[in-house]
């Protein structure tokens, strides 16, 4: 069964141009993404075991995916043996329904969340809010975009598209709402401390915590969360009820597997050997202990994932959401996450969105729109996912299913037919020479029909010269 993903209904043109018009976002993005990419290569460069372990991690992920059905059974058994409750959700709607039910049964009014892409995928906040549960995002970036009613624009840095002034404006509104004084200025440290104070209260009074999971270890039913701020530790240890929502592809077989993978997200994402906090949840709180929830629910989400197992695309399920492919992508660096119109942006976003939810044409179109085929993503991916090849496969699928505009298809058909023979090729030279005589203005081409016109919108193109190389060759080396 294929899944459903939320999408931005605005057309690509609008999404792209609004991103290209946001120069402060683009500046920050260039700087941060560039820095993270460099940090990544240095981190692997001076750390001997990193690459060896990475390869062992890749093998572990691939193995887990090929054994996914068995591992799901195992993980359910283990979690329940340790006192947790597992719910299986075939799609986004089922997952949301399940969390809402748990919340309602326990009279939850306030839920605190740590950052989780999968909850964005299922639009959990909306579901909970519709059911009367207030949801507070506690990751600093997520908190900011929640106040702005936006979606994350980067897997790791969700609010990277906003500058400090814009953040202050949001915090001022929040301060007004609570009758507090505004911050004196948009100092980043002050902004951070404002969020700390606000959120501290929420942590202490929340009825429910919600997390995702970076890994789920089948042999003990342990969820592993990797964060830098410490909010996931609050969420997993303070509220009386904890719900963890995890895509089935996050399951790995053993702790041995985990040991090779654990450092990879931080190494690849931010160039650190480990993130500040790695949190392991293996069950609800023991009577004798202080920390942890009284109840722990785990929602295992499919939403189109199982469908990919056994297909040529299954390697994309190995993604550990490190964000490295986003950081290195020249298109992402220009347009940021929102332009993709999916909760999953960047190269992996193109590939995952279209494969999890094939019903959405705008996801498939991204493969052609948001990629220059530079292969930087394939090169950087720690899980050896052939991202560029996957994008190419999607382009090919787009052609095969006639999803391209007719005119474009005809252009390629004609071009391909002509250029697969010498005679056809020479014919295009004659036509082009003839054509350019009519189109020339002030010695330059300013407009041309079809695809080629796209080039001339923003760039010049030299004219076809009086003598092409082959004509020169024929003349000088002639028959």
């Amino acid at each position, binding site marked *: 069964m294929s899944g459903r993903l939320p999408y931005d209904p605005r057309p690509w043109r609008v999404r792209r141009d609004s991103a290209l018009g946001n120069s402060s976002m683009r500046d920050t993005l260039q700087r941060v993404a560039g820095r993270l990419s460099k940090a990544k290569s240095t981190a692997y460069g001076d750390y001997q*075991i990193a690459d060896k372990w990475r390869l062992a991690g890749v093998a572990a992920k691939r193995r887990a995916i090929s054994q996914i059905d068995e591992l799901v059974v195992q993980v359910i058994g283990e979690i329940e043996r340790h006192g947790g409750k597992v719910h299986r959700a075939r799609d986004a709607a089922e997952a949301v329904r399940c969390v809402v039910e748990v919340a309602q049964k326990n009279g939850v009014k306030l839920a605190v969340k740590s950052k989780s892409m999968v909850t964005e995928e299922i639009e959990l906040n909306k579901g909970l809010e519709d059911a009367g549960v207030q949801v507070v995002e506690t990751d600093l970036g997520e908190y900011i975009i929640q106040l702005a009613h936006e979606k994350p624009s980067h897997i790791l840095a969700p609010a990277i598209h906003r500058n400090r002034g814009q953040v202050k404006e949001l915090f001022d509104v929040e301060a007004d709402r609570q009758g507090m004084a505004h911050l004196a200025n948009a100092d*980043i440290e002050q902004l951070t401390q404002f969020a700390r104070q606000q959120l501290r209260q929420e942590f202490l009074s929340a009825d429910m915590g919600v997390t995702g999971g970076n890994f789920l270890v089948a042999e003990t039913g342990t969820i592993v969360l990797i964060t830098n701020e410490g909010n996931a530790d609050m969420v997993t240890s303070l509220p009386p009820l904890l719900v963890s929502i995890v895509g089935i592809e996050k399951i790995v077989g053993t702790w041995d597997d985990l*040991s090779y993978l654990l450092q990879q997200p931080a190494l690849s994402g931010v160039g650190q050997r480990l993130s*500040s906090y790695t949190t*392991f949840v*293996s069950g609800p709180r023991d009577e004798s*202990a*202080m920390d942890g929830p009284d109840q722990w629910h785990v929602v295992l989400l499919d939403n189109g994932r199982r469908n990919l197992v056994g297909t040529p695309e299954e390697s994309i399920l190995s993604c550990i959401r490190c964000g490295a492919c986003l950081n290195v992508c020249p298109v992402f660096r220009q347009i940021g996450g929102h332009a993709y119109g999916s909760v999953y942006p960047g190269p992996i976003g193109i590939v995952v969105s279209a494969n999890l939810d094939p019903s959405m044409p705008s996801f498939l179109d991204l493969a052609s729109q948001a990629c220059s085929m530079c292969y930087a993503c394939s090169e950087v991916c720690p899980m050896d996912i052939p991202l560029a090849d996957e994008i190419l496969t999607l382009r090919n699928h787009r052609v095969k299913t006639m999803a391209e505009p007719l005119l474009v298809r005809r252009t390629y058909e004609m071009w391909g037919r002509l250029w697969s023979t010498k005679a056809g090729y020479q014919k295009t030279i004659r036509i082009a020479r003839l054509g350019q005589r009519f189109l020339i203005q002030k010695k330059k081409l300013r407009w041309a029909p079809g695809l080629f016109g796209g080039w001339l919108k923003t760039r010049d193109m030299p004219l076809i010269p009086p003598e092409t190389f082959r004509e020169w060759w024929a003349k000088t080396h002639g028959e």
Partner: protein
Amino acid sequence: MGNNVEERVAQFAINWQRLSGKIMRQDLQETLGEALSRALEVICTGVPEPAAIIAWEPFVQDLARTVRLDCQVEWIGRRASRANSIAAMASADIGINVAQWAVADTGSVALYVTPEATLYPSLLPKQHLVLLDVADIVPTVREGLMELRKHLPQLAKIITGPSMSADIEGQLQIGVHGPQSVMVLLWASDRN
């Protein structure tokens, strides 16, 4: 990677400090209580008096009794109810934990929730102090995880540096939700 304790200590120290973690070590002539006093003296500068310090684990509580400080402190321990205990810890300035193990290779320390230990001291106050027996430093994350798997507490965490975020304009900020400053006090038990 079966190198000796001192090599692991050195490697741990480099990696821990790289992440802006502070480090102190018990002197040969010093009792652990005296070393702890010295460490707390450093942490207490910059904390308004009296500094509220969480001493939860029995081991830490015993030590706390031997601590002599110039500054005024108030020790926070177990209260009558869980809620009261959490509220008290939430208003503390300094938290103390004993590390289960540490990783030389990454500069990390691991804490477990047990009937005697809580993670809150590592999370709620702005200053965190970890007591680490040098014998508990393992070379890489792998050995640590195998340990963790053996005990499998309901909740555990590996700490690698202070709480931080680069969510606003990509500028690094420390002390977002958890501690702003983390210190390790290295000591050597009889096991060494």
